[in-house]
């Protein structure tokens, strides 16, 4: 057991040495820190939508000489750690980055819950945070001056959907939603919007997160024969609802599923033929602008996989805004915050301006899979393709 003792002592020594070592020296590069999920349940979304953009942005900026601060270019040094999909680890990691390492800037973690958890730290230590994967009126209502939410709020997205339904004379709908802040907020917004527009809701069913079978619910809805089936779902249940609606041969004129439809692997896993005509939460595609096309091509070249057609672009837009703010305001984080709060920015998803924490510029959008692309189909002035309505039968 001498060996075991020695190993133990050596490990402990290394450990204490590492912990006692001073924080990373901050000489030349601009240090930008973040914690994000590389393992655990959050990693699926985080590794599609968020971290690839952080890395690609830093590489791109560094390849161009660095981030411009007061007219001088400085390289970016990214310090990214795994938060293990654990709330306490998120908090501890940002405490380290902000209070101990004193990095120059931070990038946000993935998801609404983790962003909530970091918000008080961001305010306490004065770090502006532009979050691409946090949505909900509750976040905005926190009135945290350092927090900026890039995604469209639920009411915007649901208003757009209801407007589309009115335009296409969809008169009845059934809604299922996941029992979680996201599902509830989206549903509340959709219900209000549909009521105001005279669309009848024939059935509402909610289900717990992690649900494994929705077939009975879907069959009951099929019996009521609504024009539209709207699933305010998370990725696993988006896949489940799509598969089971197809399996029971339920063909509503409009089929909408919320989060995950914009992921390229939704199309790839379900097949392009199956998802033809499926609608969902999206914002952009390579056709929405030349800048969006450029971003798409660079992303595919760098990662050999496509970015998702919703929040990936918001993540990139957030980095564009941060870059611009640093160029204008330097590395004084209070000034960066003030600059972000007071100005309008050009991004790959169009102009963005914040009122409080809310992005009040990006309009609500309805997207639809057509021939393997997630086309923007509503509102008409942003549409990259006319809507396929009624949706073709499952194929």
């Amino acid at each position: 057991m001498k060996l075991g003792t020695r190993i133990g002592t050596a490990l402990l020594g290394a450990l204490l040495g590492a912990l006692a070592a001073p924080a990373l020296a901050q000489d030349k590069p601009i240090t930008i820190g973040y914690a994000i999920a590389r393992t655990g349940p959050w990693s699926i979304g985080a590794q599609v939508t968020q971290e690839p953009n952080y890395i690609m942005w830093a590489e791109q900026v560094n390849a161009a000489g660095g981030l411009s601060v007061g007219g001088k270019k400085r390289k970016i040094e990214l310090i990214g750690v795994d938060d293990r999909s654990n709330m306490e680890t998120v908090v501890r990691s940002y405490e380290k980055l902000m209070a101990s390492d004193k990095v120059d800037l931070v990038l946000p973690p993935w998801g609404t819950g983790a962003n909530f958890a970091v918000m008080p730290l961001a305010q306490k230590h004065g770090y502006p945070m532009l979050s691409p994967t946090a949505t909900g009126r509750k976040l905005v209502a926190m009135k945290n001056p350092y927090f900026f939410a890039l995604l469209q709020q639920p009411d915007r997205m649901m208003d757009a959907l209801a407007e589309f339904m009115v335009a296409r004379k969809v008169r009845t709908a059934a809604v299922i939603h996941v029992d979680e802040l996201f599902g509830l907020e989206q549903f509340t917004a959709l219900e209000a919007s549909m009521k105001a527009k005279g669309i009848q809701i024939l059935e509402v069913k909610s289900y717990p997160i992690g649900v494994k079978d929705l077939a009975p619910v879907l069959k009951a809805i099929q019996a009521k024969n609504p024009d539209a089936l709207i699933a305010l779902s998370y990725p696993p249940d988006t896949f489940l609802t799509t598969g089971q609606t197809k399996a029971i041969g339920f063909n509503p004129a409009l089929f909408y599923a919320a989060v995950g439809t914009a992921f390229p692997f939704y199309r790839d896993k379900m097949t392009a033929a199956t998802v033809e005509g499926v609608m969902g939460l999206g914002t952009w595609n390579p056709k929405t602008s030349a800048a969006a096309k450029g971003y798409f091509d660079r992303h595919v070249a760098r990662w050999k996989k496509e970015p998702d057609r919703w929040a990936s672009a918001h993540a990139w837009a957030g980095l564009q805004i941060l870059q611009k703010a640093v160029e204008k305001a330097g590395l004084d984080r209070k000034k960066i915050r003030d600059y972000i709060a007071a100005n309008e920015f050009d991004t790959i998803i169009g102009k963005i301006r914040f009122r409080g924490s809310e992005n009040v510029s990006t309009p609500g959008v309805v997207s639809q899979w057509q021939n393997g692309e997630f086309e923007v189909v509503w509102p008409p002035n942003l549409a990259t393709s006319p809507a396929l309505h009624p949706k073709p039968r499952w194929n």
Partner: protein
Amino acid sequence: MSAREQLAATLACGAVLAAAPWLLSDFLLSLALSCLMYAALAVSWAMFCGPTHYLSLATSAFFGLGAYVTAWSLESLPYGVAVLAGGLIGVAFAALIGAAVLHLRGAYFAVITFGLGELTLHLITYTEKTYFHTAGRIISDAPDNAAIYWTVLVLTLGAVATAILVRASRLGLALRGIGADEERAQTLGVDTRRVKILAFALSAFFPGALGAAMAVRWTYIEPLSVFNPFIGFQTVLMAMLGGAHTLIGPIVSAVFFSLVSEFLRLRFPYVFLLLLGLLLIALILYLPGGLASLLRRRGRADA
């Protein structure tokens, strides 16, 4: 060491650790907080499961319930009272389920306690949605880090002290008797059912109170993040690798693994799970008696 000496040593350690908020940086303080939290979880788990050889996976259920007690009550109750209430709810819940399932053994008990965690998660989700029309709760006005740290320190010392007292008491003797041979213990006059429920409920105070104490750090409380089964798995793992039948083993192991996993996570961000896995395998192969056996062997060699 006698129980009295052990208690005195615990108190002395507590006095030293209480100085941490003045000495440590924010990050090291939150790392210390994690170590304390897992030490308390592992010790309280081992308090019941160590001597009786039960495998309980209910820690996350108690922890999550405690977190929800804070989320529900912090607006009307002081922090300290909410933490106490979290612990008491843990006790009550454990007594209830203990009465129902403690006659089960082995894998059955493990599976059902794990299932209880899931059940609690969905029960809370359903209650929140149906009666409060919400899915998550926001905690504003959280106490500062030092207050949280001292609260968790007190809970940890409480857990260790309780474990010492239980080990030295008739209750501890009865638990060891149940672990060795439950029927014989019964024949010798131990009311095994009562003893098990009592000890299981007592050990649930700490995860409940810790959940309540830690929840204020996360601002937003939702079932999925506070009923995290990994908290339960990690607790069991730490206690077993430390030596669940010992007092010091789970403590040493909780601190050791909290520090090692944090060190690996920060220094080897992409392969830390692999390294952690290898370390676990090595420990299980070469130290079957847990980390505590290292200390004991060394003690014997010195003597």
